[in-house]
């Protein structure tokens, strides 16, 4: 009833190819955007911005980048954290060399550095597949983090080896650095995430996206129908690394404010990979759902005992938290191995045929 699609006739190809052919989807999207752009910023306090909203968006973006490579093009990568690091360090060097540069431009350019590194490490993907490719990307992970530690030029020879975000203005508004307001940072991140997501949806449902899916499902068959495998895979690596690099720059500049090399180490790669897997490989929506589960849920679980006035030891809460989130992840993957996005797809399907299920 809520999701009745009867009566929504498409009379032109353009209408049939619309981003949301079903009207209810579009309405739902508008509601989500309304929450993201108006209601959350109006109600959130500093803690909600810094611990929930901004990280969820940034992690979703990183997972989106990985999902294009792994979920759409079928190339498993374990180097996401390091590629985020490339974006972050590139952005840091750009804004320290050219202090007048607009932060948005710097972030857009820093994605290109990540693209170059990603493509370089993607070249072997034509020859090595599956787990072996994962190992090659793992090499990228270790090599790049080692480089972040040893190449002092990257962090401007800072004694602590960490990079720090200076105060930066854009059109007279402080957008990054310690004195920037959380709301401005949130809107900045939200803007970038919305733009990238829009492009990602359109790439993945267009010609290139179909090419990737063909390669993912069976690369020999894809080659036989005339798809250039090397090109398809390298485009996937390029687009994916670009998005991951942008998310890395946002990660440091709009959220953390400072970073040391080991921040980009393998736990970060795994975290992003888990978000993509739990959210659902080969879906855009899944990245957001996955990030909410992995990033936001532990924070919320941490404050629940306090809200209900329970006096539990902080370490015990942390242990409980790890257990609950772990159980949930296993539970979700048992009930629905295709991730949360598939979960939503089932709900939507049921709603469409409700109240007369077959």
């Amino acid at each position, binding site marked *: 009833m809520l999701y009745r699609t009867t009566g929504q006739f498409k009379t032109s190809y353009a209408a049939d190819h619309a981003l949301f052919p079903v009207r209810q989807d579009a309405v739902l999207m508008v509601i989500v955007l309304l929450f993201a752009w108006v209601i959350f910023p109006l109600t959130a306090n500093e*803690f909600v911005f*810094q611990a929930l909203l901004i990280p969820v968006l940034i992690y979703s973006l990183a997972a989106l980048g990985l999902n294009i490579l792994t979920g759409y093009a079928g190339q498993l990568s374990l180097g996401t954290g390091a590629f985020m690091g490339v974006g972050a360090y590139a952005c840091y060097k750009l804004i320290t060399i050219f202090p007048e540069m607009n932060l948005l431009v710097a972030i857009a350019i820093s994605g290109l550095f990540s693209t170059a590194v990603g493509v370089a490490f993607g070249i072997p993907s034509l020859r090595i597949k599956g787990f072996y490719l994962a190992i090659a990307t793992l090499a990228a992970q270790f090599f790049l983090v080692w480089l972040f530690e040893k190449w002092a030029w990257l962090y401007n020879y800072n*004694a602590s080896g960490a990079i720090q975000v200076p105060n930066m203005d854009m059109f007279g508004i402080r957008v990054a650095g310690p004195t920037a307001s959380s709301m401005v940072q949130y809107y900045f991140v939200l803007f970038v995430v919305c733009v990238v997501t829009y492009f990602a949806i359109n790439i993945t449902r267009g010609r290139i996206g179909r090419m990737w899916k063909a390669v993912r499902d069976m690369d020999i068959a894809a080659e036989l129908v005339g798809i250039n495998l090397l090109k398809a895979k390298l485009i996937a690596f390029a687009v994916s690394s670009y998005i991951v690099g942008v998310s890395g720059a946002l990660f440091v500049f709009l959220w953390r404010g400072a970073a040391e090399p080991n921040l980009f180490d393998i736990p970060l790669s795994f975290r992003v990979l888990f978000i993509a897997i739990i959210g659902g490989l080969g879906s855009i929506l899944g990245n957001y759902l996955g990030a909410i589960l992995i990033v936001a849920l532990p924070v919320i679980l941490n404050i629940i005992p306090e809200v209900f006035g329970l006096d539990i030891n902080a370490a015990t809460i942390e242990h409980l938290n790890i257990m609950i989130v772990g159980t949930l992840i296993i539970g979700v993957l048992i009930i629905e191995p295709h991730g949360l996005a598939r979960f939503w797809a089932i*709900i939507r399907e049921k709603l469409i045929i409700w109240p007369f299920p077959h």
Partner: protein
Amino acid sequence: MKKRFRSVVFGTAICLGSALAVPPAFAEDTIYAPNLAYRTGPFAATGIPLMNGQRDYIMMLNARDGGVNGVKIEYDECETGYSTEKGVECYEKTKSSAVVTQPWSTGITLQVLPKTNVDQIPILAPGYGFSPMSNGKVFQWAFNPPASYWDGASMMLNYVSDGDLSTLGGKKIALLHLDHPFGKEPIPLFEAMAEEHGFEFLPIPVGLKEMQNQSAQWLQIRRENPDYVLMWGWGAMNAGALSEAVKTRYPMDQFIGIWWAGHDDDLKTVGERGKGYKSISWSVPVNDAPVMADIKKHVVDAGDSLIDNPEDMNTVFYQRGILISMFLVEGIKAAQEHFGTKVVTPEQLRWGLANLNIDDAKIAELGMTGMLAPFSTSCDNHTGHADAWILQWDGTKFAPASDRISADRGVIEPLEQAKAMEYADANAPWPINEECS
């Protein structure tokens, strides 16, 4: 299926509800002092005794005196697992009602340091953090009493040279350090000192992933055969280094750790074979000090402590935790007296921490005679630069093995000044307090 949907909807509703809930307000007559503790994760073994000491001192004051001048201190922990990300989350969560931030990691300190100017909340980082924080003009909200890492490095050099640094000429000193902001802290000072006094300085980094397997580093030490190995280690790295030192038969009495590398439990794993290992320390365990008796009586025997065994009170780290809470409480007391209020604000506490006067009489009054050296802070000196001792492991416990050692402030101060200004420039516009004389 339908049931599952309902539970999903219900779960989402709960999540949303609690996400928008505001952290609870605290009663008017208490002072909220959170601690960004780490009782979980790879550094938990070193964190737990420190946190227990901090907690028990405050519990003791609340039980014995009813708080500080009649105001109870609400000690609360926010678990970080030593993760910078969780640390910042904890900072954001607690900052609205807290009088102080105790970040407990150099990484978290670096992260929150620039924010404190905006949020106007003091950082208390005793014996860790960024050494130039000592400059109170630049770092108006940060305090690292009683000694900074650069003080520690200078004291170690003074100790190995018997107070005459010129004797170090031609010697070789290795620094085994964690490859992390914390471990890199003393390098600028060592480099400056090496240039001035003509000794060879050899930094040997230990990556976070190599903490437990330092065979490569110790192979290098064996090959280079330095006259002294100084260690900036933490958590699992210390035990790893000690067992490798035993294996390579490096002379233990030429092996000196910073104060965080003097943890009883790390040494217990090597026991007798670690005999002779030294650690510079601004705190000395005095098991029969009056304050220890009070804690035993009011907290441990009353069953309010988190320690399992009263024997655990006799460790370096537990007693150092007590001193750390003492700095905070003395800061609160100073602020209460100066401003004539009971419940101090973060702004007032900043004044209190900048006017700590821990002299011998005060130490005796607190029942801590012998546990630390006297020091005082001021508007432009946020560290105090107290003296320290060398503690030596005798096979079962740490015992002082030297007189009080001072740092060469004349060498450190210009370096602190330069680095502090560098930091301020990199983070411009950065407020500088010119009122300090």
